[in-house]
């Protein structure tokens, strides 16, 4: 499998009044048309890695890397204009909470249509048909009705389906899903994730699934990067969670309660500053 995306030694540093904060330190990975999971606790740099790929880090962030290439294009060197052609059309991102990530004063339909029209030369009518089709694909029952709703009028699960429809409509090569289900009710989490999984498989896209939930990621992805303190501490094949060696990964696995093996006390994660070196 040829690599679509190659990242080598990626670092993201924030300049703050209290001095620099290193959010991501020397992360490297390759991605083909496969599903890659990135797991870590909050502040481990997993979301910042995702944003850096789209060059959408905050203004006070400094991003550097030995190599950050997508399909032959050097993501750090190309112009902002070229980058905009990549965003959405080639690499897209699904955000955590549809309550915040959808524009509150624009209808759902218009937001999806916009995503399509930015990259395709099509008439508004064609774009509308396309968007309705997409809404159907993400299993929304009355697409015509939902099309004219505002984001606050749809449920969280439906909002996230809308988000998926919007991000997949330009048919990107890679989709980054940043905690796509953690803001949703437990009952719809798996549905939404399964939907995303189906669509990614059907279209043969690469997926980067960012989450704090190791088991969830392992069940959906081919490979898992475990991040801690801005570094990748371990890379695992999904089937081989049990063979994880790094103490942090083991800690993540052990702190989950299991139905078939009840524990009285769940262990607390140990953190060793030496891991950061």
């Amino acid at each position, binding site marked *: 499998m040829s690599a679509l995306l190659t990242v080598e030694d990626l670092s993201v540093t924030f300049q703050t009044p209290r001095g620099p904060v290193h959010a991501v330190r020397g992360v490297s990975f390759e991605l083909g048309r496969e599903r890659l999971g990135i797991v870590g606790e909050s502040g481990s740099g997993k979301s910042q890695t995702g944003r850096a790929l789209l060059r959408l880090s905050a203004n006070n962030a400094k991003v550097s890397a030995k190599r950050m290439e997508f399909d032959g294009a050097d993501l750090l060197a190309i112009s902002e204009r070229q980058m905009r052609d990549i965003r*959405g059309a080639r690499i897209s991102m699904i955000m955590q909470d549809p309550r915040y990530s959808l524009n509150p004063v624009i209808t759902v339909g218009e937001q999806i249509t916009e995503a399509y029209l930015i990259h395709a030369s099509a008439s508004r009518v064609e774009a509308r048909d396309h968007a309705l089709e997409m809404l159907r694909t993400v299993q929304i029952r009355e697409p015509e009705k939902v099309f004219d709703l505002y984001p606050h009028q749809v449920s969280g699960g439906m909002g996230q389906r809308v988000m998926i429809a919007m991000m997949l409509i330009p048919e990107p090569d890679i989709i980054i899903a940043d905690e796509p289900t953690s803001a949703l009710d437990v009952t719809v989490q798996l549905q939404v994730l399964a939907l995303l999984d189906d669509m990614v498989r059907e279209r043969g896209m690469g997926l980067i699934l960012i989450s704090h939930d190791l088991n969830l990621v392992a069940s959906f992805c081919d490979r898992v990067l475990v991040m801690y303190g801005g570094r990748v501490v371990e890379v695992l094949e999904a089937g081989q969670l049990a063979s994880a060696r790094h103490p942090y990964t083991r800690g993540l696995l052990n702190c989950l309660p299991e139905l078939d093996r009840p524990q009285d006390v769940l262990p607390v994660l140990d953190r060793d500053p030496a891991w950061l070196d």
Partner: protein
Amino acid sequence: MTTTAARRDTFALPRWIWTIGNTVLTLVLTFVGLTAVTFAIGRVMPADPVLAIIGDRASNEVYERVYLEMGLDRPIYEQYFRYLGELLSGDLGMSIMTARPVLTDIAIFFPATLELATIATLIGVFIGIPMGVLAAVNQGRWIDHVVRVFGLIGYSVPVFWLGMVGLLIFYGNLGWVGGPGRIEPYYDGIVDTVTGIILIDAAMADEWDVFWDAVSHLILPSAILGSFALAYIARMTRSFMLDQLSQEYVLTARVKGASELAVIWKHAFRNVLVQLITIIGLTYASLLEGSVLTETVFSWPGIGQYITTSLFNADMNAVLGGTIVVGACFIGINMLSDMLYKLVDPRARA
């Protein structure tokens, strides 16, 4: 959430009826409050309300007659209700200064104020909003500092002084604009008063000389009055915009590959505009009443000047009548912008 929804269901009335009902109630209460204050100012506070109206040179018979006419022998609440009834039937009393009903006077003077405040607000909106957006988008750069400092200056400068100095420079020294008043005296009476707004009347009568003369007189006072509106609107736009630009939906738009222009104007600004409606309403209302000082400096025959002139002639009916009309407009515009906001924001509509 669920409990309030359930409670609404038991009343079985749509939410917008509640919203409108509540707004109307506030409107009525505020108006009653305003009239209570003007009533207190006119009838309760002066040592002798009769003297306040007829002046101290009137004869005893006149005094007696006015005393009874005003119902001052009745209990205070009865006097208030009578006063309210008169107001609602449009009776604001007679002006001593002009010997006309106050309402007639106001109809003559009010359009000039309306014209001035409207143009000033438009200046504030069409210059202030782009300035605020520009500042927010370039946060921390020089253009942002320029807008902030400009905003603070517009906030702190006394308009009556600025008007004086502006008149000296642009009319006196440079001759770029017309002088005090609405038009040159030799244009007086050429155009029939229809709306009372000279720009419209002149345009309708096809008298373009008068029109341009009126523009040259209007431009300086409205620019100076507008500088406050501009400062306020620019400042609020900047802070709303900064707030919106940090929202996650802006990131979503960028992820889609939207251009920076689309991110700013289509996504962020649409949200800002919703908030700005209230601010623009507030500005318009405060300019209507704040034009008093500008009118004095520019001899602008508006309601503000009417009130101040009446004040110095101890013409209490005129002062209070003007206060009520301006106050009612002030309240009305604020409520209207509040309702408009609820209509435009999809979240408030529901």
